[in-house]
Structures are given as structure tokens and as C-alpha cells.
């Protein structure tokens, strides 16, 4: 492999990794507060379809339309997430099945497909896309150009968010309280922190980010609406949260690793490398399993620090 090919793969890893990172970062927030969200796939798809619709129907300048589309996608994701929070936090339901119900409800053959159908969102390529930028005119610079200066605005946003999220979770008072809620809701409650409020807010924040990730598919990657277009990215994002040890920085690296796996097929095929396409297609899924096995061994588990109360409904008046 020559270095040129590596650069192409790395650049497209960043491109394909960006929506994974958004969804996974949302998962970091949600899980840090102690809520397991298996509805990410559904939230991404709802984000994708609402963004596609907005892009087709909201008028105004291109920038304005894209901005509105992204906001609507985030709103849609967080509305769905609030349903999840209602089930898990208010009704203290089984978080696993609750998340599944969200994904089935909103997923590839559910509400997202229904919306696409009645809105006719799938007919044309979206006109207002999230396009790659040419930052400082350096996009064509050798090596660094494709790596750093030729991405969409959302990719740059994701870098900012990665830094902000780390700072928020580990340096601020609110972040400390979020982590306390996820580690020991009893303690947080006793110290006057509202477990319910924190879990709702961070679950909805997670949903918004999943929606944003979904919008990236319909506005940048494809860029049109196709039923079930995320093809399991939401699930990979959930695995990425574990892979990233619930830390934004590591999650970003993990997202790019999986982005590379996803883009490998496209890149290699375009350069007529003779690798069976199906093997490459299966790679992200197989890798996810391998990674999960590695981090769930006892050795790793002691070190990575999953939130202790993850997936456990909190009930105050227990006796």
C-alpha cells in the first residue's frame, strides 16, 4: 500500500466515522448518567428522515436550510429519547427491552419508513447537503489537506464537541454530578441531585446527538433518504461507547477505526483491489464482536470503569 492510499482511507475513515462518533458520544452522555439506550439506531433513522425532509422542504439559503435540518433531526432524536427516558426513568422499565422497542418503533421498517413514505422523502437526492469544505484553501495540500482541511462542518463540530464533552464530564460540577448519578444514584439523590432530571436531560442529549448522526447519513454520506440507511451504525455506536471506555476522546478514535472499516470496501473497490466485498462488509460487525469480547474480559473490565448503575432503574422508596 502506498501512502497516498493510506491518506485516502484515513480521510474517509474520518468522514464515515463522524456520524458514528456523534451517536456514540450521545451514548457516552446517556450511559454516564446510568441509562442504557439501545434505541440509538431508531433515533438515528428518525434524525435521518426528518433531516432529509427538512432539506427538501425548508426554504431559504443553503446554510439556513441545512442548519434547520440538523436542528430538526436533533429535536426528533431527543423527542424519541424522551420516550425512552419516560420508560426507563419514570416507569423504571427494563432498559434493554425499552431501547429495543424504540428501535423497532422508529427503525428501518417502522416510523422512519412511514414518514419517508408519506413525506415522499426518498424520491430525490437532497438538494441542500452537508458538503465538504475547503478550509483556508488547503484542501488540496498533500497529505494534510485531505486529513485536516477537507471535511464537512459537522466533522469540525465533532472535534469541538469531543473536547467540550471531555471538559464537561471531567472538569465541571455538572459533569461530576452526571457521573455520580450513573455511578451511585442513591448517593446523588442523598446529596440533593435530581436523578430523574439528570437522566432525562442526558438521555435526551444522547438522542439529539444520535439524530445528528443520522442526519449526517441523509445529508452527507448517501445523500438522500433510503429506508434503513444507517445499516446498524446505531448498534456499532453502542459498542463504541464500551470500546471508548465511556470517554469522549477514546470514543472518537474508536469511531474513526470503525469508519475506516466501513470505508475500506468502497475505497479498495474503487481502486480495483481484489477483495471479496462481502468480507469487507462483514468486517465492522465482526470487529465489533471481537472488540466487545476483548473489553469484557475480567482483566479489562476492572480497568475501564463502566458506570456502576448502568441499566439499573433507580427507585427511592425501596425497603
Amino acid at each position, binding site marked *: 500500500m502506498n501512502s497516498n492510499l493510506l491518506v485516502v482511507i484515513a480521510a474517509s475513515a474520518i468522514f464515515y466515522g463522524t456520524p458514528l462518533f456523534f451517536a456514540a458520544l450521545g451514548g457516552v452522555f446517556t450511559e454516564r448518567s446510568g441509562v442504557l439506550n439501545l434505541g440509538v439506531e431508531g433515533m438515528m433513522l428518525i434524525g435521518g428522515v426528518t433531516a432529509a425532509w427538512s432539506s427538501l422542504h425548508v426554504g431559504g439559503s443553503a446554510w439556513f436550510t441545512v442548519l434547520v435540518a440538523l436542528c430538526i433531526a436533533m429535536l426528533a432524536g431527543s423527542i424519541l429519547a424522551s420516550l425512552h427516558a419516560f420508560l426507563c426513568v419514570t416507569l423504571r422499565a427494563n432498559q434493554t427491552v425499552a431501547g*429495543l422497542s424504540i428501535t*423497532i*418503533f422508529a427503525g428501518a421498517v417502522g416510523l422512519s*419508513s412511514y414518514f419517508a*413514505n408519506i413525506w415522499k422523502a426518498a424520491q430525490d437526492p437532497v438538494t441542500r447537503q452537508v458538503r465538504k469544505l475547503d478550509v483556508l484553501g488547503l484542501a488540496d495540500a498533500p497529505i494534510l489537506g485531505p486529513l485536516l482541511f477537507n471535511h464537512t462542518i459537522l466533522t469540525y463540530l465533532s472535534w469541538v464537541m469531543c473536547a467540550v464533552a471531555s471538559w464537561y464530564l471531567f472538569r465541571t460540577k455538572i459533569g461530576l454530578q452526571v457521573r455520580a448519578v450513573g455511578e451511585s444514584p442513591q448517593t446523588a439523590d442523598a446529596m440533593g441531585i435530581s436523578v430523574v432530571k439528570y437522566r432525562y436531560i442526558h438521555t435526551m442529549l444522547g438522542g439529539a446527538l444520535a439524530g445528528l448522526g443520522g442526519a449526517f447519513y441523509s445529508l452527507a454520506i448517501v445523500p438522500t433518504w433510503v429506508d434503513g440507511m444507517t*445499516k446498524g451504525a446505531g448498534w456499532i455506536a453502542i459498542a463504541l461507547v464500551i470500546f471508548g471506555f465511556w470517554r469522549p476522546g477514546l470514543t472518537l478514535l474508536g469511531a474513526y477505526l470503525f469508519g475506516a472499516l466501513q470505508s475500506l470496501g468502497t475505497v479498495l473497490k474503487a481502486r480495483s483491489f481484489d477483495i471479496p466485498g*462481502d468480507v469487507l462488509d462483514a468486517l465492522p460487525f*465482526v470487529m*465489533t464482536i471481537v472488540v*466487545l469480547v476483548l473489553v469484557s474480559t475480567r482483566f479489562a473490565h476492572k480497568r475501564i470503569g463502566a458506570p456502576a448503575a448502568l441499566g439499573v432503574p433507580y427507585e427511592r422508596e425501596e425497603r
Partner: protein
Amino acid sequence: MRSPVRLERRLTQPRWLNSAIPVFSLMGALVVGAVVLLATGKNPLDVYWRILDRGFLSQRAVTGTLRTATPLAFTGMCAAAAFRLGVINIGGEGQLYIGAVGAALVGLWIGGSAPVGITIIVMVLAGMLFGAMYASIVGVLRSQFNTNEIITSLMMNYVAGIVLNYLIFNSRSYWRDPRSVGFPSGKPLEKRTFWPTYEVFSTSVSFGFLLAIAAAIVLWVVYKRSRLGFEIGIIADSPRAARYVGIRTKWTIVAVTAMSGALAGLGGTSQVGDFAHYLDAKGLQLNNFGYTGIVVAALARLNPLGAILVAVLMGGLTNAGYSLQGPDFPSGLVGTLQGLILFTAVAGEILTKYRLRSNRNAVKAVAV
């Protein structure tokens, strides 16, 4: 910030809840679904009536419904079997594909020569075995490395789908019909190996559906009466108590996951033997049988006999969805309704653990 009602822990679980919760869940889902329909400019009563009509109200409808219900019954039991142990195997989808691969392999291989009865039996066994083996990967990873089975089983669904595509579309495999040129398809089974159908009240019932009923009865007996069922119950109730009396939890997890996969594999087998009569890579993936099975299991509250009943219900819904699909019956509507049913079933489960109490008067119960 005091809410008018609060949740109070139930001390006992009245029996009537077992049937009341699914009924309430269904009704709740229909109400929420009506809101979605109204909001998107459809008439819910009209939509529901047409679903009822096309799903249940004619012989032709019922035949189609039972046809769709057959795989759902198997995947529903697949999910229920694993969920009972607290193993969230959502890989029924992939296990169904792999079961179909196994059944088709055997059917193609010995279907031309072996007696029909033997062929069918071996197909059933092969489908179960393939499904079980595929699922047991999930079980082994969970019990040996404590790997989250939800994600592994789900990833394996995608892998299984890719395997199907590879076998039929992207290779010259044993399963592919060499005569199919333009659009690749599976090699058809010998006609004599097609599974029988039976006429019951002038509705045709497939052999696979009867097999599902038999499997449900066996499962029910296992849960109620067997040592294995007893141990599964203890592990699910209290893993520490299971450890305390020396129940082999790890072994049980693998065994139950394999059993769960075998059930899904049977669903795939029935698709090959009953309906498609070849490895239908596209058809198998089109219907989300595995995921709908989770809805079935949840609404049946993990009861295998209930799963048959719910499968017929969901089958009707899905079947009506196919036949109605068109400009004024958007795709995705059936999936949305099924998701809502699961959603309300999850929410309804809370009534087994809690009851609603008014905050104003702590003594008086306000609902259920």
C-alpha cells in the same frame, strides 16, 4: 413538584394481570397509533378496519396470516426462551437465516434420494442444529467472557444477512441455482420434499405451524415441570441463589441460548420447507421476522403458548400490511404499530411490579 400519582410496589401479582397486561398494551398501542395516524392525516378507524379485514376476516386472509405467523411463532419462542433466563438474544433474525441455510443444504442434498419422511426430519434437525450452533457463539461469549449478548447477537444478524447474500448473489455456491442468470436465486428443492399442508376448516395450515404448536407445548412443559425449567427460573430470579446451590449457570446459559437459536432455526427451516422451497435470500431478509419475534415474546409475556396466539395476531397485522401496501397505506405503518405494541408492553410490565396510587390519598388506589 409533587405529581398527582405515584408508583407503589406491589406485594403480590394477581393472576388476572397475565392476560390484562397484553390486552391493555394492545389497546394502548392502537390509541397511540391512532394519534400518529391522525397527525399524519389518516383516518385511524379506516386503517384499523382494513387491517382487520385483510388480516383475519376471510379464509384467504387467515391462510396468509397463518403463513406469516409461522416464522413469528418460532422467533417469538426464540426470544422468549432466552429472555426467560435474562439472556437478551435478539439474534433470532440471523439464527433464522442460518437455520434456513442448514435446512436448504440438507433438502438439496438428500431430497432427491432419501424417503420424504426422512428428508423432512433431517431438514428439521439440520435447521435446529445450524440455528443452535450459530446462537451458541453468543451464549459461549456471554458465559465465558461476560460479553454483552445484545450487541453480539445483533452484530451476528448483520453477518448472517451478508452470508445469505454471499451464498445466493455473490458466489456460485451449492445453494444457488446455476440456471438463474439474470437475477440469481436459490436452487429449488425437489417437489416431493415440499412440506405438507392440511386443510382445517377450509383454511390451509402448514406443517411448520403445527410444528410450532408442538414446540410451544414442549417448551411449556419444560418450564413448568422439568429440572432445567426449575433451574432457569432460579437463575433468572436470583443468580446468587443459583450459585449458592451449585446450579451450573454458565452451562445453562449456553444450553438455553442454543435452544433459543434452534427455535429460530426451525423458523428458517419452515420457510424453506413450507413456503419458499429454496434458500430465498431476499425473502428471508425482507420481513424482519426475528425482530418482530421480540414483540411477540414481550406481548406474550415470555409464555410459549401465548407466543403462538400473539404470533397469529402479529402475523395478521404483517399480512394485512403486505396486501394493503400502496399509496394510501404507507410502508412502515405496520412496523410502527408493532413498535408501539412493544413499547406499551414494556410500559405495561410496570403494572406487575407497581400499582398506581393517588398522592392525595395514600390509601385509595386510583387505577388497576
